C-alpha cells in the first residue's frame, strides 16, 4: 500500500480528540474521498498527512517510509487549500514556480514545467497576472497546477470545489478526476458533499465525530452502509422501528418485514430509501414474498418538485417518505388514498445495535 495511516489521533488541548483511532491505507494512483459532516475532523486528518498539524499519536507512512515526524516542507505532498491560498504578491507563473524554486530546479526547466502545468489546467494565457485578477474558477485551477507541478507523492485536496458555483463545480470535478487518472496520482479528496464523493472517488471514508464510520467503494457505502449515520449521510432515508422475531422476520406495527440476511433479538432499526419504495393502489398487492416487503398505508401529503412526487404515507409502523418519478400524466394519488407500499427485501437495511438517534 502506498499511503498507510495507523491509529492516528489528534487532540487540541484538553478537548475530546478531533480525530481518533483512524486507520486506512491507499494504493498507488487511488482516489480516496474523505466524507463527513462539518467539524468531523476531515481537515485535521488532511493536515496531519501533510504535516501542517502534528499527530498526537499514530503513524503515517508513504511508500513504506514513516513520515509522521517529518516537517511539511520535506514531505513532498501537493496540497490544495479550500481558500486556494495563492500568494497574493506573486504572479500566476511565480505562484506555480514557487515549489520548483524550493526544489532548486534549473531556471529553464522551471519555465518549461510551469508552462506545461498551466496548459494542463487550461490557463496558459494568464501567467503574468496576479491572483486577484482571476475568477474563482481560474484561481482554483492555479492552485491545482501549483500543487501538481512539484510532482507530489500524494495530492491532498481540502473541499476544493466548495467555493465554486454549482455548474463550475461539476465541470471542475470531472477535470480533477481526469487529471488524477492521467497522472495516476494518489489522491485524498476531502468533501462534505456525498454526490461529489460518489461521482469521482475510487473509495470513500465516511467520518463522524473524529472516527471512521466506514470505508468502501461508493456502491458499498450507499447500498451497504455500516451504520445508520452513514446511511443517512449519503442520501435521504426512512427510519422505522421494529422487533426481531424468532423466525428471522421483523415485526413493525402489525406488519411483518423480511430481510436479506436476517436474525437477531430485541429492537431493530429499519431503513429504506424513499425512491426504492413502489406505490400501488390498495388491493393490487399480493402478500409479501421472500423477495419483497409490502405494507399498507394512507397518503397524507403530496409534494410536487418537478422531477419527482414526494409522498408522505402513514403506515402502521410510522410515517414513510416515498419518492416517485413524475410523468406527463396527472398526479396518480391524492391525500387520503389507501395504498400499498412495496420494496425489495435487499433494500431493507437493518441495524440491531443502534436504535437511538
Amino acid at each position, binding site marked *: 500500500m502506498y499511503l498507510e495511516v495507523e491509529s492516528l489521533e489528534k487532540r487540541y488541548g484538553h478537548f475530546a480528540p478531533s480525530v481518533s483511532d483512524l486507520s486506512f491505507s491507499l494504493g498507488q494512483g487511488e482516489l480516496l474521498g474523505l466524507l463527513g459532516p462539518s467539524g468531523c475532523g476531515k481537515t485535521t486528518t488532511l493536515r496531519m498527512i501533510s504535516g501542517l498539524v502534528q499527530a498526537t499519536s499514530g503513524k503515517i507512512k508513504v511508500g513504506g517510509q514513516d513520515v509522521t515526524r517529518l516537517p511539511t516542507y520535506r514531505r513532498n505532498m501537493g496540497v490544495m487549500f479550500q481558500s486556494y*491560498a495563492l500568494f*497574493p*504578491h506573486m504572479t500566476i507563473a511565480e505562484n506555480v514556480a514557487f515549489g520548483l524554486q524550493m526544489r532548486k530546479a534549473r531556471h529553464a526547466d522551471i519555465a518549461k514545467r510551469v508552462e506545461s502545468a498551466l496548459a494542463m489546467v487550461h490557463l496558459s494565457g494568464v501567467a503574468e497576472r496576479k491572483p486577484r485578477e482571476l475568477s474563482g474558477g481560474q484561481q482554483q485551477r492555479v492552485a491545482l497546477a501549483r500543487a501538481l507541478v512539484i510532482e507530489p507523492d500524494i495530492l491532498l485536496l481540502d473541499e476544493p470545489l466548495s467555493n465554486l458555483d454549482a455548474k463550475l463545480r461539476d465541470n471542475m470535478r470531472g477535470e480533477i478526476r481526469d487529471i488524477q487518472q492521467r497522472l495516476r496520482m494518489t489522491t485524498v479528496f476531502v468533501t462534505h458533499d456525498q454526490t461529489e464523493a460518489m461521482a469521482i472517488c475510487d473509495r470513500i471514508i465516511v467520518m463522524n465525530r473524529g472516527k471512521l464510520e466506514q470505508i468502501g467503494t461508493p456502491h458499498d457505502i450507499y447500498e451497504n452502509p455500516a451504520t445508520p449515520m452513514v446511511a443517512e449521510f449519503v442520501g435521504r432515508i426512512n427510519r422505522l422501528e421494529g422487533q426481531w422475531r424468532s423466525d428471522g422476520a421483523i415485526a413493525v406495527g402489525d406488519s411483518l418485514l423480511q430481510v436479506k440476511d436476517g436474525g437477531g433479538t430485541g429492537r431493530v432499526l429499519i431503513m429504506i430509501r424513499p425512491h426504492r419504495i413502489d406505490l400501488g393502489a390498495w388491493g393490487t398487492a399480493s402478500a409479501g414474498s421472500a423477495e419483497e416487503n409490502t405494507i399498507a398505508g394512507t397518503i397524507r401529503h403530496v409534494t410536487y418538485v418537478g422531477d419527482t412526487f414526494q409522498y408522505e404515507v402513514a403506515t402502521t409502523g410510522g410515517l414513510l417518505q416515498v419518492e416517485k418519478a413524475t410523468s406527463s400524466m396527472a398526479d396518480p394519488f391524492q391525500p387520503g388514498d389507501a395504498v400499498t407500499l412495496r420494496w425489495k427485501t435487499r433494500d431493507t437495511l437493518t441495524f440491531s445495535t443502534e436504535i437511538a438517534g
Partner: protein
Amino acid sequence: MPKISRGFHALCIASIMTFLLAPVILVFPISFSADAYVAWPPSAWSTRWYVALLHNEEMVTAFRNSLIIAACVTAITLIVAMPAAVALTRWNFLGRDALTSLFTAPLLLPSIVLGLAILVIFAGYGLVGSWPGVIIGHLVITLPYALRVLITGLSTMPAFVEDAAGTLGADPWRVFRRITLPLMTPALVASAALAFIVSFDEVVISLFIAGTQLKLLPVSLYHYVESWTDPLVAAVSALLVLGTLGIVLIVERAIGFGKAVSK
C-alpha cells in the same frame, strides 16, 4: 431637515474643525512675522525667523540629535518588535495573551510616571543624558505601537498562504523570507513611520532622561518657549508640521503601493 437648521449644522461642524486645526495652521503666518515678539496681526512679513533658526546653534544641534535618535529608535524598534510579533502570532503557548498585554502596557502608563520611573533608575547607572539612555527610554513607548501594528498585519494575512508555501517545500525561514515578509511590508512601513514620529516628538520622557547635556528638539523648544516670546518656535513648528505631512504622504504612497501589491 429645514434649510436653516442644516446651515447651522454645517456651520457648527466647520467651526469645530477649525478649532481642531487652528493651532497647527496659525503657526504658519506667525512664522513669517517680522516682529520681535508674537503678536497678531504681524506689523510686517519676513523670513527673518527662518534665518535666525539656521543660526541658532542649539536648535540646529537639537534637530540633528532628534533625527539621529529617531532613526536609531526606529531601526531598533523594528529589530525588536518584528521577532516578537512573529512569536506572538505564530506560536501557541501558555501566557501568550498576558505577554502581549504586558508589552503594550507602557502605552497605558502616563508618560510623566514612566519618565520619572526611568529617570530614577537610570540616574543610578549614569544613563541620564546619554544616547543609549534616551534610546532605551524611547523604545519603551515606540515598541507598543510597532508591536500592535505588526501583530495586526501578521494576523490579518490571507489565510493559509504560509501553510501552502510549506507544503511546496519551503522551510520556515524561506516561508518567512518569501511569503511573510513581503506580505507584511505595509505593516512594517507603517510601524517604522509611527516609531519615527513618536520618538521624534516625544517630549515628556526626553525632558526627564535627556537631562541638560543631550539636546533634543521638543525639549529645546519647550525650554525656549519658557524664556522667549519671539516667533522662532513658530518657524520650527511650521517646518515640523510640513515634515510630518511629508512622512504621512510617503507612508500613504508606500502602503497604498504595498496594498496594491498584496491584494
